[in-house]
Every structure is written in C-alpha cells, then in structure tokens.
C-alpha cells in the first residue's frame, strides 16, 4: 500500500494549474485537492497519476461566499467549513450543517473538499446529492477558458462525470433556498461515517397544510444522486401528512434503478429509497 512513483507540482495560480494539467493530462497528471479519495486509491495502486498538481498551495480558495442569490463553494472548501451554519447562508447553511455530519469522520472532513467530492462522483456523495437538490452549477476552468455545467448534466454514471480531462472544477454555485423552505435529510449507512447505503435530502414549502413546492433528492441508491420528479409530483398540492409521504416514497420506489452489489441486493436499496424519503420528509415538517 505504497503509491507508485509520481511527480509533484506546486502551481502558482489556478490558470497555471490548468496549463500544467493540459500539458500533462495525457500522461496521467491529476489535480490534488483534499486527497481523501485519491491518495488511498494511489496507496492501493488503483490510481497511478503521473503527476499531482497540488491546489492546496494556492491562496483564497477555501472560504465559501455569497454571490447574489447563490452560495459559491471554491475548489478548496473543506467539508468541515460547513460544520457550523453561517447565518448568512440561511436555510441552505443549516441544511448543509446537518448533511455534513454524515460525511465520513471528523479528521477526513478537515481535509476533504466539497468540489473534490463532486469531481470524484461517488454515488454516495452527500454533496452530489446536495448539489442536485439545490440545482447547482459547476464552474470548470481549462486553457480553453471557463464554462458552467448544470448539476443535472454532471454525473455520467458512478465515479464518472462530463468533465473534460483537462478541466479543473474551480467552484460550485449553489442557488440559495428561500427562507420559508423546510428541509429534511436521512442517511442510512452500516456504521457511523460509512458510505451511505441510501439517503434522501428533501426541500419543501408548505402553506397552511398544503405542500406548494417540493424537491426530493435521492443518493446512494442509483449510480448517481438525482431528484425524483415522480416523488415530487405526489407531494405538490397535497397535505403534508405521513400518507402523502408514503405515496411519494412509493412513487420513488417504482421508478428507481437501484444498484446491486455482492453485499447489497437491489431490492434492499429500492426499499431503502422509500424509507429514507419518508423519513426525510417527516423530518422536514417536524
């Protein structure tokens, strides 16, 4: 569990990093951010970067900030930045403070990054789920300039994205939720800190007893997190009751293409999809 030889490069700016990546990507150069997935993969020799371009040496990429109606999360924002909800981030900040507690363990959260999690694209990424529910846009930089990709077009299957090999994910733009939004999150994993077997993140608006808007995100169940329109349709215009939530859960279970593996059959994950949606919705109105 010692990595194969690799080179190490300290860029002077994001632009310099992009130039270096463009130069080396065909040989296997990679960006290093938090390294909480990449470095273990190197130790296990399932990742063989020819060179690591270390963004950690660059200043001013760590602190999330508000830009108009969006929360901008730069390339080096650590998971732990969201441990305490910044009042300026409102409902969105409080929701992310709840979600972040489920990401791995405390030491890992000090190092791992939000954007790194999106770039790695594990099906059980809490931040990929969050980005889906919030309708994020991902800002990519290369020597060809910058472009923005909507989250719905980002994941391309498990551990795979539409990022071009020479592009760096430099920031994620998260549209803020309205302050009347109620959110709920439920994650089921084997042990505290393990990858999710299944999780749901919901954001709903309720007027009187009636649900007027709903976003239902599901992660860890399919090969990438996404919103489940069929579940959302069951909620809008309906009373915020357990019966309604159960219908939304059933609708999700009917449409998900649950992953199966040697440990967890797809039937288990399909049932779990319903469970986490019901519980996240119940939490949202609690």
């Amino acid at each position, binding site marked *: 569990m010692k990595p194969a030889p690799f080179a190490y490069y300290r860029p002077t700016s994001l632009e310099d990093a992009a130039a270096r990546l463009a130069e080396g990507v065909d040989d296997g150069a990679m960006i290093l951010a938090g390294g909480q997935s990449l470095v273990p993969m190197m130790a296990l*020799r399932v990742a063989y970067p020819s060179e690591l371009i270390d963004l950690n040496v660059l200043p001013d990429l760590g602190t999330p900030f508000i830009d108009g109606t969006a929360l901008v999360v730069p390339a080096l924002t650590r998971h732990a930045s969201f441990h305490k909800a910044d009042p300026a981030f409102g409902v969105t900040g409080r929701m992310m403070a709840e979600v972040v507690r489920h990401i791995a363990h405390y030491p890992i959260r000090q190092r791992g990054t939000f954007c790194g999690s999106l770039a790695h694209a594990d099906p059980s990424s809490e931040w990929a789920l969050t980005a889906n529910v919030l309708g994020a846009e991902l800002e990519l930089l290369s020597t060809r300039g910058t472009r923005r990709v909507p989250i719905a077009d980002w994941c391309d299957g498990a551990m795979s994205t539409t990022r071009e090999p020479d592009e760096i994910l430099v920031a994620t733009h998260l549209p803020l939720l309205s302050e009347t939004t109620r959110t709920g999150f439920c994650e089921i994993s084997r042990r505290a800190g393990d990858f999710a077997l299944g999780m749901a993140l919901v954001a709903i608006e309720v007027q009187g007893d009636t649900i007027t808007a709903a976003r239902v995100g599901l992660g860890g169940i399919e090969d990438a997190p996404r919103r489940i329109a069929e579940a959302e349709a069951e909620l809008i215009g309906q009373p915020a009751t357990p019966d309604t939530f159960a219908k939304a859960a059933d609708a999700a279970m009917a449409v998900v293409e649950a992953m199966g593996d040697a440990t967890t059959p797809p039937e288990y994950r399909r049932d779990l999809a319903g469970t986490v949606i019901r519980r996240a919705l119940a939490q949202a109105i609690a």
Partner: protein
Amino acid sequence: MTAPKLPNARRSAWIGQSVPRLEDRPLVAGLGRFVADLNRPRQLHARIVRSAHACGRIAEIDTSDALAIPGVTVWTAETLGDVPRIPFRATRISGLEPYVQPILAVERVRYVGEPVAVVFAEDPYVAEDATELVMVDIDEDVAPILDARAKPGEFLPGIGSEPTVVRKGYGDVEAAFAAAAHVVELDLATGRHSGIPMEPRGALADWDAGRQHLDLWGATKRPHWNRDRLAEIFGLSPTQIDLHEPHVGGGFGIRGELYPEDLLVCLGAMRLGRPVKWIEDRREHMMAANHSREQQHLIRAAVDTDGRILAIDETLHHDQGAYVRTHGARVADMSIGLLLGPYRVPAYAARAHFRLTAKTPAATYRAPGRFEGSFVRERLMDAIAQRLEMDPLELRRRNFIRADEMPFERGLTALESEVVLDSGDYDGLLSKALEFCGWSDMHAKAAKRRADGEAVGVGLGFFVEKSGLGPSELVRMSVATDGSIEIVTGAASLGQGMETAIAQIAADTLGADYRTCRVIHGQTARIDHGWGAHASRVTVMTGEATRRAATELKDRALDMAAELLDTEITYLVLDDGLATDTATGHSVTLAEIVKALDPVSPKRGHRTPGLTAEAWFHNTHMNYPYGAHIAMVAVDRDTGRTSVERYAISYDVGRAVNPAMIEGQIMGGLAQGLGGALLEEFRYDEDGQPLSVTFADYLMPTSAEMPEVAIQILQDAPSPLNPLGLKGSGEAGVTAAGAAIAAAVDDALQRPGLVKRLPVTPQYLHARIAEYDAERGQ
C-alpha cells in the same frame, strides 16, 4: 491505586487489586518498539507477489521486468528450491500432511493472496514497484469451490478436498431420538471473519554468517515452538536461532503462528547475506493472515416432555480455506468437542467435515469454536424453549450441569485433552447475572417500547469457556542486588497485560512491590522452554509457575534474613521488600539479603549463591470458566439495522488477579464479538475474488457502535487445578456475543428463530424477515 491501607494488612497483597498496568507507560508515551520500528544496517525489504486468482495452474511467472530494476532480487518456488513446509503445531489428527501450504505456490494457486513469489529490494517502495512487474500467468482450469457444503473436489490427483471428518460422541443417540417427545432441528451458519490486530504482521531477520546465527524479530504467541521448527526447516540447531518478541499490537490467535512470510524473510537474510525486513500492509493482511469462523451447522436435539435434553446430533461443515496451516483441524475439532457448553447431554454424536475451499486458510481466532458453538447451542436452547412453550431460562436451568456434579467428565476431547469441567455453579451464575443486568426491568422496558411501536428486544447467551491450556510452563525468577525482581518466562505478550498479572502474583507471593518486577517474555535466548500466549493460558500457567518460584525464593530469602537478624524464620515476615522480625521490629531489605548471598559474601555460608529460582508447572487438563452475555438491541424494521443499546457480561474467572484488566479483556473481546455478530465478514464473489480487503468493506465496530457495557466478575468457582484457583479471561468477551445478539434480535422483532446466521447484517435481516413471514404465511 495501591495496596490496601488497612492496619496490619500486608502491603504486598497484590492479587485481586486493580493496579495500573506495567506495560502502559512506554505505550502511552510513544516509546513502544514494534517490529516496524526496528531496523538493521544494510537491510533489504521484502514484498510478496500474491496470486490474483482463486484457483488455477501456474502457466508462467515472468520476473524479467522486475529484475531489470537495480538491486531487485525475485524468487519463485523454482528458485527457492526444496524448502520443507511448515508443520502442524496443534493436532493429533493424521493424514493432513498433503494439504500443508508451500512457502511459495507450487504448480497451482489456490486462493487470492497466496504467495507466488517474493521480491527483495533496497526500499519498500521499490519492492512494491517490482512486485507489480512480476507477471504471473494463471490458467484457470477448474472452477473454485467456495462453499464447504458443496461436493468436495480434488486437491491433488487422487487426494480429495476434504482432508478429514472429525467424529466425536458417546451414548446411544439413535435410541434417544427414537424415544424423544420432541425433536428440534436447526440449520445455522457463522460468517467468515477473523482477528484484525491494529498492528499488521511483520518480521525482521538477520543472519550472522560469522557466528552462523539467525535472529528473528517480530515473533510472538509461540516463540519457542517457532524457533524449533525454523531450526528443523533450515537444518540448524535451536541454539543457532533467537526469536525476539517486540511490542505487539494485538494477536487474537492469528498472529505469531509460523507463516510463509516468516520463512521467506529468514531465507532472504541467510541467502542474500543482508538483513531482511517485511511489514505486512492492511490489504494483504486481509487475504494472507488466518481467517476463521466460517461454519455451517445442522444440529438436532432430542428432548423429553419436561424439556430435558436426551441427545444432540450435530453435523458441521468447516470452511478451512485453501490449505491446512499450523493448527491442523483444531478449530473443527474443538467446535464439536466443546459444543455442549454448560448442559447435561446424555447422548451426543457429532461429525465435523473439515473441507478446503478457494479462500484464505483459516485457523484460530479468539474463542475459536466457542463463538460459533455458543451461537449454535444457545439458538438450539431457545428453539427448544419455543417448541415446548417454556421460559428459555427455565429450560436452561433444567439442563445445567449442577455444581455438585463437578468435576464433570464430558467423555469428549478438545485441544488434545479430555474435557473435564473442573468447577462451576451455572445456575448460581445465571441468577446473579439476571440480577446484575436487571433482567426483569430490561424486559419490561423492551416490552413497553415494543407496545409503542419500536422493535426492541433482550437476549441471553450462556457459555462455558476453557483456559489454562498446558502442558507446561517454566519460570526463572531472580532478585538483583538492588532488590529488583526479574521474572523470565517463555510465555508471550500480545498486549494483554500479562506483565502486570505475573508481577502481581510474583510480588504478592514473595512480599514485594509489583512495580519492582520486570517480566521478560517472548525471548528464546533468555529461557529454554516456553509455550507462549494462547488459549487463555498465561495467567494460569505462567502464574502458577511464578507462584512456585516466588515461594522458593521467599523461603531462601527468609533463611538468609534469619541469620542476618539473628532470629528464627518463624518470627519473620517478608512484605514490601522487607524481611522484618516481628519480635524485635528489626528488618533487612531484599537487596541486603541478596548482597549477603553474593558468591563471595562471608555471610552466605553454604547457601546457594544469589537469589534465583526456577519452577515448572505441568497441567494435563484445561479449566473451564463460564458466564453469560445479555444484550438489549433495537432493530430498525425498515432497514434491518440493529443497534446494541445495552450489554451485560457476568463471568466467573475463579480468582481475579487484576479485575480492571479482566474487564478490559472482556470489553475488548466484546467489541470483536459484536463485530462477528453484526458487522465483520470476509466475503467472496463467485470467482473467489475477496470483496473485503479494506476497512471500507470489512466493517469493524467503532466506538460509535459500542453499547453501554456492564461487566460482573465472579469468583465463586476457583479452579481446583491450581492452588490460586486461577482461570483465564482472554476470550470471555467474545464467546456468547453472537448467541446473545441473535436472541435479542428475535425478541425485538417477536419472531422466534428468525436469526439463522451471523453476522446479522441489515441486508440479511431485511431479506430474512420477508422469508420468515412468507414461511409462516404472514
């Protein structure tokens, strides 16, 4: 914590005190020296090339690319030449010889992770680079066997993959079943898991060509046996080999056996003329170190109308993995030898099918055979109670062997000795355990929460452990001229606290401060004989040998002191390192006594010079501590996830030398027991590829998964087999964890007999509930 301050109390009454561990200071100060911390000048680093295939013929091994790296040496079985294989340490079962693992694979590979070649290089990174360049071409000519109940295949031409069937029993089982009012049958299984010490294995060898002497660091568990076998394998005298035990980060039965890697490191040092170091990484540990526990049990009980067991019939399939290692068939053997636990069983027939599969070879892991057997036996007791509509505790009481029947001859063998339960009051312990944990209150609370919609339940597992395995142990104990005490034993320390326990017995017996004792262990150069640390034996075996040596030293010290104080021995008391004349109040220190016994001291007279004594303890029978595990769990019905909320263990250890350390042993064991009950499992896919080779896939309990635990240590049944009444405590925390968790999960979901296999994963439980309800038309 110090000795009791009661007036007139002996200050040296250390036995029974929860004194701090002597071992801890270097460990908490970062001064521990584990094998990875050790280095020798000019050392090479070894790395093992392991099979990526579960099964197949070795077509070609191409080492040319690896050898192109400067300083790299590569050996395969062919270049290694004819090296004898590692023999068996622990079996009387014959016919296992063809199944012994070669040091490097010969002609075939038989599991993923099997050593195929070894690389030596200047640093561990280069060694790993070179390992990747060794091209091993495997012809997968037959499908791997991955289920011990599958039809056995061929190991070698004409030699099948079932090395033996172990049979045990007594009485007329057939007649008992014919006459039985009820027959209860269960089909149960325990998952494959094992000891995962925090420190992986490692070895560092240095061959001194001038002295023709081999040193091996990283030894533990059985240093003397390992030394003697290495000597035989290498054609050396045992006097030419020293094994050294450094600090050890946990063993649990799997560490310290002779493995292929130990031999490769020694051979490397001898043939290459440079020291060789090998440190196992976690991924290879998961596929190279011994696995354990995977068994399938078909068990039947014949029972009369009152719930009395008339006979038990048991068929076991033991998944041994690809080869037979040092333990032989010991785990399968003791699984059926110790299956019956605390119950009176008039007739018994058991057969253990010991079968090879294309998995990492298996052997002992903390409470081997008893974790599995306790799960099976206690499941059976609960099933009988359910069938007869009896209280499961009353059923157990009816079948317990009574205290007045001790010692109780089982008519069975285990670990090559007859099973004679030496002492015990099982019924008494059950009563104390129920009171200690608040059984009625726990049940009432669980029932209330169930009525409120939760799935909460309570379960109990009763167990009999075994400890104090012989045959012998030798201790040499000396008092130095400064009054400090050295105790040399051939036992070993895997971190369990033996230095402290032995120091307590030595100091208590002699009359000294336990903190003045240094316990030397695991160093073959310091003592000629030793049987190591396993089978919960050290406190019993080394403890009693120490007591004997200390008794002799005390007699000799007092004899000298009597002359120095001009008095009679009968007036003398030796306490806290001071011999005091109770008539005059005059005293001499142990240091002064030792100086008076100096070879040239005029005061010595005709006494033996110095103050050193050797003592043996020989023991042909194990002793049998016992206890109960009681668990309260909450199950998430939707997800199948089980949370252990409360846990209580009551355990009779005969005589507790250091209660806090025993609690520590039990607590640590319980973490492993809960791992085996709920989380840990080595899984394989249909091609024999291991799926659990990192800590992301092999789930061990963390502090977040550990419940609130209460431990009750009882001393109601001292062992009659040694004067202090000692029994062991190394395995009690593990033994009945699977049994108690299974019963608690059944209770939580109000589905008797629900749990049929361990670990009870959410995925298993989710599917099993559906199956259970379908079987019963619910």
